[in-house]
């Protein structure tokens, strides 16, 4: 089993930390993982992206040219990464701010109104967990209990009281994800 994921959006949307939680969840499930971020000026408010690979075998390249899943949170990232999804792969996006929706027909496309959902539950910081929930619903590559374990490992202990809130956001994302095609 191997899952190559690209997550891309604005800096500040929690792109890198979502990738880290997925990677840590993979470790909790005894998988091999790599997490490779874009780094530099784009970290400071521009676009940010991260490539996460989960595999049951040793991972050679942390750099991919095609991915199984693309999680897309802004228009620039959609323009950049839509073509990189393997045929039959998954493209999950938040339609908020998207003016040109994905057009491919050879991949599975889903959307999650994560910004709207985060506003509804009154917690903008839950945004990336809602997206994560939507992803896990569509690609249950890691079990939810391992995601919670991964969460515990990737956030500092002083923030552990926030874990139930994150769990709820993940569940909300699972419910709210919509198949587009």
């Amino acid at each position, binding site marked *: 089993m191997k899952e190559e994921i690209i997550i891309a959006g604005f800096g500040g949307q929690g792109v890198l930390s979502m990738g880290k939680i997925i990677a840590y969840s993979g470790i909790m499930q005894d998988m091999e993982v790599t997490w490779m971020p874009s780094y530099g000026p784009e970290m400071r408010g521009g676009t940010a992206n991260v490539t996460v690979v989960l595999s049951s075998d040793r991972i050679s390249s942390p*750099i991919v040219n095609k991915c199984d899943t693309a999680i897309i949170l802004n228009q620039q990232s959609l323009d950049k990464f839509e073509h990189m999804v393997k045929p039959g792969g998954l493209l999950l996006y938040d339609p908020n701010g998207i003016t040109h929706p994905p057009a491919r027909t050879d991949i599975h496309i889903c959307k999650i109104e994560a910004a709207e959902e985060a506003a509804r539950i009154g917690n903008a910081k839950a945004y990336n967990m809602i997206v994560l929930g939507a992803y896990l619903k569509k690609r249950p590559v890691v079990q939810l209990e391992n995601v919670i374990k991964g969460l515990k490992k990737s956030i500092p202990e002083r923030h552990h009281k926030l874990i139930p809130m994150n769990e709820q956001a993940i569940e909300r994302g699972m419910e709210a994800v919509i198949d587009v095609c």
Partner: protein
Amino acid sequence: MAEKLLKKGNEVIALAAIRCGCDGYFGYPITPQSEVMETLMEEKPWETTGMVVLQAESETSSINMLYGGASCGKKVMTSSSSPGLSLMCEGLSYLAGAELPCLVVNVVRGGPGLGTIQPAQSDYFQATKGGGHGDYHLIVLAPSSVQEMNDFVDLGFALAFKYRNPAMILADGIVGQMMEKVELAPQKPRWTDAEIQQIAGDWATTGKTADRPMHIITSLALDAAVAERFNEKLIEKYNEIRTKEVRFETTRCDDADYLLVAYGAMARICQETVDMARTAGLKVGLLRPITLFPYPTTELQRLAPQLKGVLSVELSAGQMVEDVRLAVEGRTPVKHYGRLGGMVPDPGQVLDALKQLFSL
């Protein structure tokens, strides 16, 4: 077995430094390796192991702080990225000339000049051929995983002290920024004064006592005959290192017609290329030098006669390929494929290059 953690290569350098009993880290921030000092400051090792961590005013100062610390027989290290390493070359020459052990980490970014902060391997010449003035070499280790970032800290110090020579971990922006599963080494205590006496007691400046002559750490030898003898001694040392310390890894080389040679993160990408090539019916193998100085020349010489071609794959305009050519000595064609300026090829692009360059 220790717990598996998910950590960045740069963070692991810091954690491994503390755990291997490093006495002092002196550095200056530069992308893409600033997490090394940030992690150390966060960990506050001065409260636990007693390790000193200091942000210096420049890379020039950092490397000279290493000279001061190493002269006392202490395990000292710094980390930087390419432009910073250029500033350190003066100091590295002095450290090599004074035969001082220390560990320097270069998380390479693209150049020349201010260049880019994206990953590159264009400091190969600087790292393996000396960099600063004079005839000297660093011992150069090239990690290709986060786990090796951990392992090579301890190994780097061990080799540095074994040969009284600066050691370098030549990483790149990918290995530095990437997170992977890592098992950290158990905590070792820092050397006691008595242990330093045992390890470095015949040369370190620990304070002149009545029972021994004064110790002078210097690289100065104004008398030409003395300077020549000293340089010959250095050559002997480097030759011993060439004989004893070569490290490399091979993947599917036994029956290979074509050999990829790549180190660091590029070797990871080439591993996938090997799989893709094999699936496509091409007998391709990979030689990954782990030490860049000393270089696995003998292994390349051994493999060369069976090969139809060798492709050196680097994030540079063609630096390591010179060592490949020197090793192969014309026995088989040697080509180079590289991406520049922070661009990183994917495994398929490497395969395309192989096919194109050897008309496959």
